[in-house]
């Protein structure tokens, strides 16, 4: 059983995705429960996998699909880093699935079943992308994730549909560019397996064609990860997506391409090659520009969700800068920030989704005295906001510290300056939110979904929200163990010398 964990992570939600509409046809709630159960099972498997791979001292676990031995067959390769990212994705998906149940209270069976199909498929796509050891397989999972993502965004209403269509156009360009890049690599080496490619490509890394490959990969993953200047699709998509699914979309969907980028540049190619270094420099410049411009754009927004979307552009920039630094601490910071940011952004979208559910409001200026009505939600907003700015003890502070340490290590002082400026810009818009909440007079919001009893929100929403707030703090307190016991085991050997 436990040797099948890698495939079960993908298989359980996949089967739930297919079964969900049938079950909801028979009994409306059943479709929901089967999806939640499958995602929970998937989460347990990924935790088991994480334990396995860390117990093995970070030795990568290879799982051959149908026992076809690579490079001919497709394999899942699990190292500590993608194990922890998959655990994060499945946890986020499970919590989001539970969180979104109140939004579907009044929907019919088809909507209910379809919603959970898309949710489970998104989880399949994202975890598959993270786990797979085959570049073409990654393309397939990328498209599964994207297509279900388009669906979930389109469920958010008319504006959501428009955003989804526009995202689809841009996203397809990204996917095609990725396909082109692996076409080049395949024509050079005749292999699609990542481990195989990493060996075969080593003596071809100075071919001019590699410039093309690296450029295409940056553009492709840049589009998918909403790296500046490829982020045009993102603000609308995040803003108008289904409020129940927004935490998963915003938390995980743009992080996985960033991780894929890391995988290609540091594990497949190796950062010591000249072209890869130039590529990383480009990523770093884009990331730094994204950090500044994303933060500036975020300051100008009144719609909370839109502000968060622009802040995502900035936060992806942190990850990109971490990659571009390309030293041990840079990578640790980038990976830690992938995890931290997923939880921070996820919790913020959950919190604003909760406000939207109860009051139908999402404008920052209308949140006055929210702490009186929704104290727990405000607690999470504050913790996540502190994390976003990078104020201890929330998790975001530590990823920032590691990235700064990395920049110091390699003498790229400019990134330290960028991070300092960005923290201050983040402080401007997140403290503005808190100021609006605490200082503004009561906005007199109308309850559109009054909750029975004393609770501020239905329990299905409140528990994930508070849990995420606690996790952000816990990630801050336990960052040393995450780094030492998980991330360091999975880094390429060159960094640990």
């Amino acid at each position, binding site marked *: 059983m436990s040797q099948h964990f890698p495939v079960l992570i993908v298989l359980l939600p996949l089967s739930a995705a297919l079964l969900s509409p049938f079950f909801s046809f028979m009994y409306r709630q059943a479709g929901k429960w089967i999806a939640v159960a499958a995602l929970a099972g998937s989460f347990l498997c990924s935790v088991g996998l994480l334990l396995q791979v860390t117990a093995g001292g970070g030795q990568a676990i290879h799982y051959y699909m149908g026992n076809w031995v690579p490079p001919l067959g497709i394999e899942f390769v699990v190292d500590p880093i993608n194990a922890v990212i998959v655990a994060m994705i499945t946890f986020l998906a499970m919590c989001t699935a539970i969180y979104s149940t109140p939004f579907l209270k009044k929907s019919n069976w088809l909507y209910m079943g379809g919603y959970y199909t898309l949710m489970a498929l998104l989880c399949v796509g994202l975890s598959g992308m993270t786990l797979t050891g085959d570049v*073409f397989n990654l*393309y*397939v999972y990328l*498209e599964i994730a994207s*297509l279900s993502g*388009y*669906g979930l965004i*389109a469920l958010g209403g*008319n*504006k959501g*549909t*428009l955003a*989804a*269509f526009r995202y*689809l*156009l841009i996203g*397809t*360009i990204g*996917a*095609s560019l990725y*396909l*082109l890049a692996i*076409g080049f690599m*395949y*024509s050079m080496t*005749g292999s*699609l397996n990542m481990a195989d490619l990493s060996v075969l490509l080593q003596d071809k890394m100075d071919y001019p064609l590699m410039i093309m490959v690296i450029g295409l990969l940056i553009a492709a993953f840049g589009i998918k990860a909403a790296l500046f200047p490829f982020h045009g699709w993102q603000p609308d998509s995040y803003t108008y997506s289904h409020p129940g699914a927004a935490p998963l979309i915003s938390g995980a969907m743009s992080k996985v391409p960033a991780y894929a980028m890391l995988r290609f540049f540091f594990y497949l190619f190796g950062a010591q090659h000249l072209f890869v270094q130039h590529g990383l420099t480009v990523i770093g410049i884009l990331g730094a520009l994204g950090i500044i411009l994303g933060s500036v754009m975020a300051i100008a927004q009144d719609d909370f969700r839109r502000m968060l979307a622009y802040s995502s552009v900035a936060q992806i920039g942190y990850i990109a800068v971490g990659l571009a630094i390309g030293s041990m601490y840079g990578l640790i910071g980038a990976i830690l920030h992938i995890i931290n940011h997923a939880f921070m952004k996820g919790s913020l979208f959950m919190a604003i989704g909760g406000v939207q559910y109860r009051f139908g409001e999402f404008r920052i200026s209308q949140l006055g005295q929210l702490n009186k009505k929704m104290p727990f939600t405000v607690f999470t907003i504050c913790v996540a906001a502190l994390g976003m700015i990078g104020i201890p003890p929330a998790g975001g502070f530590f990823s920032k510290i590691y990235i700064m340490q990395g920049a110091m290590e390699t003498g790229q002082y400019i990134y330290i300056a960028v991070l300092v400026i960005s923290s201050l810009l983040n402080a401007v818009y997140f403290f503005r939110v808190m100021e609006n909440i605490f200082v503004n007079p009561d906005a007199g919001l109308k309850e559109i979904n009054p909750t029975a009893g004393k609770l501020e929100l239905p329990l299905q929403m409140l528990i994930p929200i508070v849990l995420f707030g606690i996790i952000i703090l816990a990630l801050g307190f336990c960052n040393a163990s995450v780094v030492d016991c998980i991330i360091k085991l999975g880094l390429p050997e060159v960094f640990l010398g």
Partner: protein
Amino acid sequence: MSDASTMDVINNFLATKGIYSLVLILLFLGLYGMIVSNNYMKKMMAMNVMQVAVIFFYLCFAQKDGGMIPILNGITTDPNAYINPLPHALMLTAIVVSLGTTGVALALLMRIKEAYGSAEEDEVLRRADK
């Protein structure tokens, strides 16, 4: 004299690499269409053209002069005599994916048309901003 050798070079290039230039032109045609056309339907069709260009690219580099279809027929077991079937298989998947993308795009487009009464980008954006 020099004309002949130039022609040789061109011929040689067209024979070996020419098809790739065509693929490249097709790809950029698709991208160009996506950028300049104002109609969402046309944008989507241009997107399909771009996807097809990538598929052509795979099929082109899988091509081999004098290669056989990859079925063991008892004549030879030398792999060099056969065409590599893998790119074709990959492209089957890619075609399916692009079909799926097109399907989703059409469904979304229908909804957009229903909601905003148009598929022209400027018109839709104007109505969406209201």
